[in-house]
């Protein structure tokens, strides 16, 4: 999001929501600040689980009460009640995966036991049903994650946020509504989750799945943030909506050697760490498929650094279609699957 979109969302939160009650505080920083990147306990808006930070939230409502961070076991004087990430994606023409590239920012809070909201400022574009599905699935652990374009919902949540049971009572109907929105969308457009998976470059197997994406090494080594965020967004979409399956995240334009290289070079990169540390997810390269035809391997190697558009996109699609068919028929297998 541009800095001005960021500023507008925060301004809206300040002027239209505010702290809601006098005993609560709205923790929010100017768009130009880096303080949101500090961990919550250190005065910031970032939540971590283990040594994985989930990105910074845009705002949090807090109360002056002792709080033990489940992540580091330390006790702090301020308790987080609700975390929020905002986006102007519905006004900036984002109809696709850009809508969920920041979904994981609030996930850190959810996984730390703090309810969260992904607020998309109302606009001409609709909230993608997949986002509703992701939020409903993320709420399955008992901590609600809401997706909304309505600030009165945010206000309502904040008003009861210091009482977890009251918050649950408020939030559960919204979580259920999100699930319905997603289920209706799948029913109407795909008929089944299997077809939904098919449409999303995902091959379903009895106990695992393979999701593939055209990521290349440069997407993670160069300064563009967007590719890393998109990869994480797509990962969480698949992982949450197919929660019972182990997920192999296949990057056909990469090999295991390149993945190891990224492990080394991008050890401190937030998005790469999330991708590599998420339980139940393994990133694999094309060399980790047994039975891969040498010509397909060569074709993908030739495209390993090429932006996918025009003719290169057509070539890539053809190669990846062949891989997908192979995985469906078991002509191709993930070498380590089931081990």
């Amino acid at each position, binding site marked *: 999001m*541009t*800095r*001005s*979109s960021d*500023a*507008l969302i925060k*301004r*809206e939160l300040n002027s239209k929501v505010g702290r809601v009650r006098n005993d609560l505080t709205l923790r929010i*920083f*100017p*768009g*130009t*600040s*880096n*303080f949101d*990147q*500090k961990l919550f306990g250190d*005065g910031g808006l970032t939540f971590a689980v283990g040594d994985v930070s989930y990105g910074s939230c845009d705002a949090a409502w807090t109360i002056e009460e002792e709080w033990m961070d489940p992540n580091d076991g330390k006790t702090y004087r301020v308790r987080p009640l609700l975390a929020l990430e905002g986006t*102007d994606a519905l*006004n*900036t*023409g*984002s109809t696709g995966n*850009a809508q969920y590239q920041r979904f994981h920012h609030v996930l850190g809070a959810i996984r730390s036991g703090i309810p969260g909201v992904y607020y998309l*400022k109302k606009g*001409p574009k609709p909230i993608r049903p997949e986002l509703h599905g992701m939020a409903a699935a993320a709420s399955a652990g008992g901590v609600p994650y809401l997706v909304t374009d309505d600030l009165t919902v945010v206000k309502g949540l904040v008003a009861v946020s210091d009482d977890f049971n009251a918050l649950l009572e408020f939030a559960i109907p919204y979580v259920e509504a999100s699930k319905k929105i997603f289920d209706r969308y799948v029913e109407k457009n795909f008929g089944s989750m299997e077809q939904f998976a098919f449409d999303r470059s995902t091959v379903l197997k009895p106990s695992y799945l393979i999701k593939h994406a055209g990521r290349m090494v440069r997407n993670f080594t*160069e*300064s*563009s943030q967007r590719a890393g965020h998109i990869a994480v967004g797509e990962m969480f979409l698949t992982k949450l909506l197919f929660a019972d399956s182990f997920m192999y995240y296949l990057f056909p334009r990469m090999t295991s050697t390149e993945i190891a290289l990224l492990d080394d070079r991008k050890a401190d990169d937030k998005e790469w760490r999330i991708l590599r540390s998420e339980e139940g997810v393994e990133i694999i390269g094309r060399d980790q498929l047994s039975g891969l035809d040498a010509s397909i391997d060569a074709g993908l190697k030739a495209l390993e650094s090429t932006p996918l558009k025009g003719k290169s996109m057509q070539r890539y699609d053809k190669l990846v279609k062949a891989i997908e068919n192979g995985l469906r028929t078991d002509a191709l297998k993930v070498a380590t699957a089931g081990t």
Partner: protein
Amino acid sequence: MRKLNPSRFLEYFETIGESLNSTSEGEVVTLSSREALVFSAQAGGLYVFADGKTFAPKDLLKFFNRVSSFEPIWGVCDGPDIVNSPRIWAQEHASLASGQKYVMPVELDDEQDMVTAIARVRENPKLADNTIIFRIESWKKGAGAEPFLEYAAGRVLRDFSTIVDTQVTIGATEGTPDVVACDLSDQLRLVMARRPDIQSGVALIELAALSFDYGRSFSLHEDHFAGLNQLCRAGVIALEAKTGNAAASDQIQKYLLTNLFSGVIELRDTPRSPDSEAVGVLQLSEATGGMDFVRNQSRGLQPRSDRQMDFLRWFECQAIGHLLLNLNSDQLTELFQERIGRPSVTETDAIVHLMQSLQISEVLDTVTR
């Protein structure tokens, strides 16, 4: 190379001819109300008021979310109403529009430092209502320097008679240059003829704050800006701010591919070779304390004239919109009725229609009445 800190901040303003003053909270820069507004809106300053409130105008005066769009977004307008303008802000705090303002650089390692600074300003009757805190974060790689560079570049570009704005979104894939400067010479000459307070280029927000006390230093040293004047006359230029060793290549490449800009410039606080030969470099100078145009682009860009004309027309609309913000609701309604020939439905409707229908000269007639 020194990172931006309060000392370098103050040195910059002193170099460009603005006054420094000593206060109980340290040295501050003294600016006119109008220039303080420009600074706060572009660099990100926080007004501190005695009544317990604070105010940050940065990025509030947006009409539309991107170039060529006339769909109003939350910013100036909120649904049917105009909610943000210097006139409206000054109604709540009259001190915004008059008197000298103190810009106080405060270095922060923690948000509590900001809370303390605000409290101390508020306790001082001379400072409260007249002070703008500029935050310079020292944690991690720091923050504050890029918006400061945007303002500093804007000062130079205004001195070269362009109209300047920050964070102008071209498109979702085409990017958002940190600074855009347009040569609207004919229109600017009209404004200057009617307004003795505008004698060179302007920041867009200035056009919305014509009732604010004005005044700023001019400190063009031609030898530091060789080539920049010609670039400013060429049409539209885009600038991308980066600090330290951060690369600007991705954004620069996007701007070059738009075929919209006559010039693209990297804006820096540290000497660094540009990521592309095609761009110039405007840099905060360690030696002089001010800005230097250290390198011109190696070749002229060939923007598409239709693209540039569309952009300039849209940008002119923004200028008209900012001028219209000097009017109150009744004046706006009256102008709408007079020029469009029917009553407006809402304030937003009125201003957006007028922006698209009027010439700058027609607006100036009303605003200077």
